[in-house]
């Protein structure tokens, strides 16, 4: 159990020593994860909204499919993205394989179903509560989506955090499509995997602690954002 003690020491030394490699890893992790969450939000929130307010054939099947896709195995997604981007794949011209771009693509695929499925669930219950009133005011389903998102802003923000959590914790997909190249596509989780493989358990654990702190900071920021939003009651809301 020595590892735990040394792990904290490692974590502290890495953070306090402004270790270049560590901060590079952290920066890239943040960049890739945040980009994936932003893309997933741009795709998933409207998709969830459409599934929540429109009635069409196959809607239920779409919802079931989305829910199932929340559990997509990262390695499988990584493999599929790898095949798509590889030299013989259909998207080889993009030249994305083994770049941070490829990691963003893979993580967006992992996070979008989470954001879309949870948003659908949230907005569906909002819609049932607001439907008559909004319809009465002349607000059709399409126009209602941004309004409902705003009404349920905290819950939607929480789904984005869940998506961020999925991206930040994930290693299988990014290691396949990114290749874990030092200073280029190496992120927190892939270095933890690498150090574990090398037998540097304390260092790996130290990196894990840093990752945990990072997640804590992100969630704290989101919380703070929520608080200030609550105070500044905006009437220009959508």
């Amino acid at each position, binding site marked *: 159990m020595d590892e735990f003690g040394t792990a904290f020491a490692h974590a502290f030394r890495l953070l306090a020593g402004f270790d270049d490699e560590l901060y590079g890893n952290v920066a890239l992790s943040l960049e890739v994860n945040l980009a994936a969450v932003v893309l997933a939000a741009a795709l998933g929130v409207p998709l969830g909204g459409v599934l929540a307010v429109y009635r069409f054939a196959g809607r239920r099947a779409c919802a079931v499919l989305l829910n199932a896709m929340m559990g997509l195995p990262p390695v499988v997604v990584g493999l599929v993205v790898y095949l798509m981007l590889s030299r013989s794949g259909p998207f080889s011209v993009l030249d994305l394989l083994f770049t941070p771009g490829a990691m963003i693509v893979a993580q967006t695929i992992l996070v979008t179903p989470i954001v879309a499925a949870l948003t659908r669930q949230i907005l569906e219950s909002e819609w049932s509560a607001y439907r008559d009133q909004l319809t009465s005011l*002349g607000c059709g389903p399409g126009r209602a989506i941004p*309004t409902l998102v705003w009404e349920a802003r905290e819950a939607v923000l929480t789904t984005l955090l869940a998506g961020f959590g999925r991206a930040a914790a994930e290693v299988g997909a990014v290691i396949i499509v990114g290749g874990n190249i030092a200073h280029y596509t190496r992120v927190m989780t892939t270095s933890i995997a690498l150090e574990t493989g090398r037998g540097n358990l304390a260092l790996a654990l130290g990196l894990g602690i840093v990752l945990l702190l990072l997640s804590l900071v992100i969630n704290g920021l989101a919380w703070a954002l929520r608080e200030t939003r609550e105070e500044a009651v905006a*009437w220009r809301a959508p």
Partner: protein
Amino acid sequence: MARAVRPASILPLVLDRVGVEIGGQVLVAEVDHRFEEGGLSVILGPNGAGKSLLLRVAHGLLAPSRGAVRWLGPGAAAARRHQAMVFHRPVLLRRSVLGNVVFALRLKGVAQREAVVRAGEVLEATGLSDKSDLSAGSLSGGEQQRLALARAWAVEPEVLFLDEPTSNLDPAASWAIETLIRSISASGTKIIMTTHDLPLVRRLADELLFLHRGRLLVAGGAADLFAQPKTPELVAFLEGELRW
């Protein structure tokens, strides 16, 4: 608040043998009625008579299973635009009091700047201007109902549907709502409301429709019907003896 330019009227509103059936149960049956311009119409009846359902059908929120709802006025093409409804439990958005009214105006295509000005006027007229920056959720029940009314009034509807506007309110709040309903009615808006608050009906109603078990038993001038209730069910209801 007076209507600036009065658009072509959407009234009369005709309910043509309207029926509503949900899950094989007939909840409203063969309701025939013609709502004319002006005045305040009250749909009266015990709980479960189908009053709210009928109101939702008339407002277009629910398609009737049988029959039809027709707007016959010269402005009928824009009927959807010129009506509003306030629900039994006010549905407010999670934004400021002012924001709730502005939202409704923006949906009607009013520019942001003008919407803020008009919303301010409506809040002034409804006694809510000192609360305009508060979150709508922080208002009391009576104030929330008043805000819902203010929001509906702001869009200057020709017809305003009210579903039991004073139920669940204490006497002071009820009185405030009643005063507001009078002002809205006086501004030229046709009000069609449901309620089982008999004293309120006596004070406000011009026209009375009595609904019982989904059927329209009797309709006519309120004063006449109070003097001569015509059907035993209405007699019993007015005397507080009709339970269902």
